[in-house]
């Protein structure tokens, strides 16, 4: 019995080592409409030449987990890292189908989208356990002290998952990156514009510090 347990333990340790080296899962987490898919698209276009998902101003555009395998990026010093990029639905505590009606959807479409969105949030939370490293994407034009942000970061900390906080939309006038830095002083915060590519080189360099 003891030998079997020791064997299982060694197997688990070896699996973890190889899993981390070969298939690092880099997750994109954050509240709804913070720009997770825009950042995923920017990374994918820059390094593999194709987009990952559809971007929309309508909330909950991403309603299921999307994975782009074997994305390889290179640093200025010639180092390279490869990872599986995992784009997740935005985390929310409320979903009201009537909100979608404002975006010219039919009642039927809005209800369907709301149902899928609730499932997406559940799926995103369940996937937290599978991540090796996470980019928490926040909208830098919004108040960072939202409970969704705190819950995501708290759960990642509890699981000892390395985190890089991204303050997205720094190209906008209302952007306040300092508010994010002040709210989460224990994390490295990088300001970018996933849409316009502002500061994206610094972001790639910081990825090398987080993914080890």
């Amino acid at each position: 019995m003891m030998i079997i347990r020791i064997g299982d333990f060694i197997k688990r340790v070896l699996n973890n080592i190889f899993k981390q080296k070969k298939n690092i899962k880099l997750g994109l987490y954050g509240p709804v409409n913070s720009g997770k898919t825009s950042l995923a698209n920017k990374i994918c276009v820059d390094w593999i030449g194709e987009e990952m998902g559809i971007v929309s101003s309508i909330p909950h555009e991403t309603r299921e987990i999307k994975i782009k395998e074997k994305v390889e990026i290179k640093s200025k010093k010639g180092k390279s890292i490869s990872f599986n990029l995992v784009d997740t639905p935005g985390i929310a505590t409320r979903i009201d189908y009537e909100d979608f009606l404002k975006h010219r959807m039919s009642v039927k479409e809005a209800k369907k989208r709301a149902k899928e969105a609730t499932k997406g949030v559940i799926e995103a939370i369940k996937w937290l356990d599978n991540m090796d490293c996470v980019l928490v994407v926040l909208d830098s034009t919004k108040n960072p002290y939202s409970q969704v942000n705190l819950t995501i970061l708290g759960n990642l900390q509890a699981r000892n998952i390395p985190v890089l906080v991204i303050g997205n939309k720094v190209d906008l006038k209302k952007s306040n990156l300092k508010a994010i830095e002040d709210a989460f002083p224990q994390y490295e915060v990088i300001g970018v514009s996933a849409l316009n590519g502002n500061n994206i080189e610094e972001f790639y360099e910081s990825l090398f510090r987080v993914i080890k």
Partner: protein
Amino acid sequence: MLTLQFIPYKEINNLTTSGKIKKILDLVKENKIVLVEGKLRSNEEAALIERTMENVTKSFKGIELCTIKAEEDYGLISKFKAGMVSLLVGNRQGFTIIGPAAIIKEIRKDPTKVQLFTVDKIRKRRR
């Protein structure tokens, strides 16, 4: 009329995560704003969001929640002190507010204050 329901620490301390969440959600679904003594653990917050999403219907649109920590110092000594207090008397520092999305539009929090914004029913009815 808004009802604020207080749940003291001793009432939920011995409950499992799902027991705590059921107790909270049952009250929130009765359109009550719940004030829990002590901060929910991060895994409990995530489980609360998951369970809320499972319960979303036409009439129950979700929740707004906010946890307030008493201690925001990240120093080692402060963390150790807070850990010792938790061990001795339980993690009753801070509090958690949970309200139904049908009543609470937004809970805005900054380090020094918490603001609850309620849904403007009169304006909604007029539309």
